[in-house]
């Protein structure tokens, strides 16, 4: 398939996944905002989340203080900010439109309808305050639908593998960043007597669809150790780092070409490292260091995939 086509498919699915991740984050914080006595935790959580996602400076260009409603609006609906959910949905649709011939008509229509609907929702919003909770709920549903239509209608060929690589690279990135935003809650600090705010847990777990999973897996009170274990090392947890790396590796193996051996090897290495490591080892390294290394390897992998498959070499 054309390298450019693979590139558009890869970005199309990355943007949809990113829209969903952002929607989850907004949703979790929005729920928190409805609870009493949590405003300080909420502001703190919003601040560290925006820092981890590199959104803070763009936000502060537009707004003076971190205020929940303004943050929700900024992340969800800001037409001018290229990192908002709205902009992600537009970018996903523009990438899809560039290769609409390589998509099934069901998939194209799903992405196109999502964009048209988002646009009219945002237009309506200027006159009346829409419910942000409802908007992010809708974004999640559209993302689920898109994923379902992708798996259910597309041939499981090269095009499919590139969409999957995009999805799981983006998801790994998102999980790692959310963990980064909450690392202080996950690692017992110098002062062990400070008990982390239980609201912070619920935000973290809900943002990764892991709240109910946690209860089912551990049947126990929530402890930092187990939360980290669930989100990093559980093979059966769809948003864990291990699971995402496994999917990236497997899909990369299926599209391997003559120059991609080293890229595939590195993806395999990332997967194997997570597969055979223990939580104790990660904590010994220190969670912040571990996450930083992980994100940097992920960036390297993304760049390698782009140069091996997507961005055509200048001289052939």
């Amino acid at each position, binding site marked *: *398939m*054309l*390298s*450019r*086509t*693979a590139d558009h498919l890869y970005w199309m699915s990355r943007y949809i996944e990113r829209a969903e991740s952002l929607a989850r984050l907004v949703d979790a914080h929005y729920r928190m905002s409805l609870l009493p006595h949590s405003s300080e935790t909420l502001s703190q959580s919003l601040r560290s989340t925006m820092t981890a996602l590199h959104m803070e400076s763009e936000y502060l260009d537009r707004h003076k203080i971190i205020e929940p409603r303004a943050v929700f609006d900024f992340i969800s609906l800001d037409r001018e900010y290229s990192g908002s959910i709205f902009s992600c949905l*537009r970018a996903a*649709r*523009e990438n899809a*439109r*560039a*290769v*609409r*011939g*390589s998509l099934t*008509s069901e998939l*194209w*229509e799903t992405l*196109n*309808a999502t*964009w*048209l609907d988002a*646009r009219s929702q945002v237009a309506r919003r200027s006159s009346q305050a829409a419910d942000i909770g409802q908007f992010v709920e809708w974004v999640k549903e559209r993302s689920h639908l898109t994923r379902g239509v992708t798996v259910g209608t597309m041939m499981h060929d*090269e095009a499919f593998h*590139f969409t999957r690589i995009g999805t799981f690279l983006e998801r790994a990135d998102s999980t790692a960043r959310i963990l980064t935003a909450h690392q202080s809650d996950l690692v017992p600090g110098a002062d062990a007597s400070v008990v982390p705010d239980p609201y912070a847990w619920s935000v973290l777990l809900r943002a990764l669809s892991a709240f109910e999973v946690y209860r089912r897996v551990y049947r126990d009170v929530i402890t930092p150790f187990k939360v980290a274990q669930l989100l990093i090392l559980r093979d059966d947890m769809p948003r864990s780092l291990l699971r995402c790396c496994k999917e990236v590796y497997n899909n990369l193996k299926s*599209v391997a*070409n*003559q120059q991609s051996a080293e890229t595939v090897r590195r993806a395999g290495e990332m997967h194997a490292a997570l597969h055979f490591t223990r939580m104790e080892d990660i904590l010994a390294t220190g969670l912040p260091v571990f996450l930083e290394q992980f994100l940097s390897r992920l960036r390297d992998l993304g760049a390698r995939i782009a140069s091996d*498959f*997507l961005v*055509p070499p200048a001289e*052939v």
Partner: protein
Amino acid sequence: MSAPQGDHLTSTPYNEMTKVDGDGRAHYQRYTSWLKDQPPDRLAQKRAEADALFHRVGITFAVYGQEEGTERLIPFDIVPRVLPQEEWIRLESGLKQRVRALNAFIHDIYHDQQILKAGIIPPEQVLCNSQYRPEMQGVDVPGGIYAHIAGIDIVRDSAGEFRVLEDNLRVPSGVSYMLENRKMMMRLFPELFSEHRIAPVEHYPDVLLENLRSVAPTGVADPTVVLLTAGAHNSAYFEHAFLAQQMGIELVEGQDLFVRDEAVFMRTTQGPQRVDVIYRRIDDDFMDPLVFRPDSMLGVPGLLTAYRSGKITIANAIGTGVADDKSIYPYVPDMIKFYLGQSPIIGNVHTWMLRKKEDQAYVLAHLSELVVKEVHGAGGYGMLIGPAATAAEIDMFRRQIIATPERYIAQPTLALSTCPTFADKGLAPRHIDLRPFVLSGRDVTIVPGGLTRVALREGSLVVNSSQGGGTKDTWVLET
């Protein structure tokens, strides 16, 4: 030249559905009796349904200068344009004849130029034309076919005669609307299709692909065909993506292709892959920055060298524009006689060439009755419609004609035939034309019908989508 034939606005346009005495034409009978039984709100609801579907499927055209992700619909009218079989048979043979002659003409121009030597067309008309490509002189193309895909615009005058208004031999578009309009009509009104025998059009992509494969460079057993687009921001992008998908071929941009050893390759995830036929949807000027416009980002450097060496087929060929220029149009009937020894089955619209002194004098004296067109204009731009123009507009054209007469032609203001169309206040007659798509490969083929365009504004004669035109499904009835 003779006095004006044809008609202008004072004559009553030919109504496709109804005769002058008010009786319905036979081939519309079943449709009109069906229409009578339809409750008005059902039709209104079907129109809304069509709009929503077109948006959702993204059958739109991009509007330059608007926000990304904003495209417009070409309005679709739910009343079909119906052609009886006997009319179509005549049209079909006339179109095939015309396109054969046009291909013979282009081949001749880039080889021996016999038609110029015979004194039928003044050589400067051809050789000084900006669409004439000296790079193509002496180049042999597979099958001698240049215009593989031709869109011939047909109108019907007030006497009920079909005439050719324009030949589009470069990158004619609109065929996707022909196909999507049919799909939409079948979805909205399936009952109409069981009540009529309507000639199918759905096989167009298969015929097109077969044609493109048949003109691959000699010796290529299983040619790889690609469709070259300017990209997602081009106004006809939907059609490019649609056709590539329907044919199952890659939709490529210039950046996806490169030339090595005079052969063309595309960049794929598995390395370079050889390309044999390019169905291009960008103009000559942008095809190869080394030969044509050096600032073009859309083309492929070295493509023309590959083309001249015979290792790639380009459809339509480079340089076909020399035959669809409005200053060449008046000579097409002569080409038919010269190359085929036949008399034209479909006539032209009478045309005055303003570089001729006597034509110019007549036109300048009758500007308020005539249509004046720029020779290189397209899409309904650069055009004066005398009866609808203000004194100032007429004055402006008068000065331009006197300054550069060779840039203009004039034609009578045709009362294009009308077809009932949904307007704000219900059904009303609107002017229409017809663009059939003529495919030339090993043989010349046309799927029955074509794209009917309709001028939605009352009284308007301009059917172009960029100027408020819409489209209709076109039925050729089989008997």
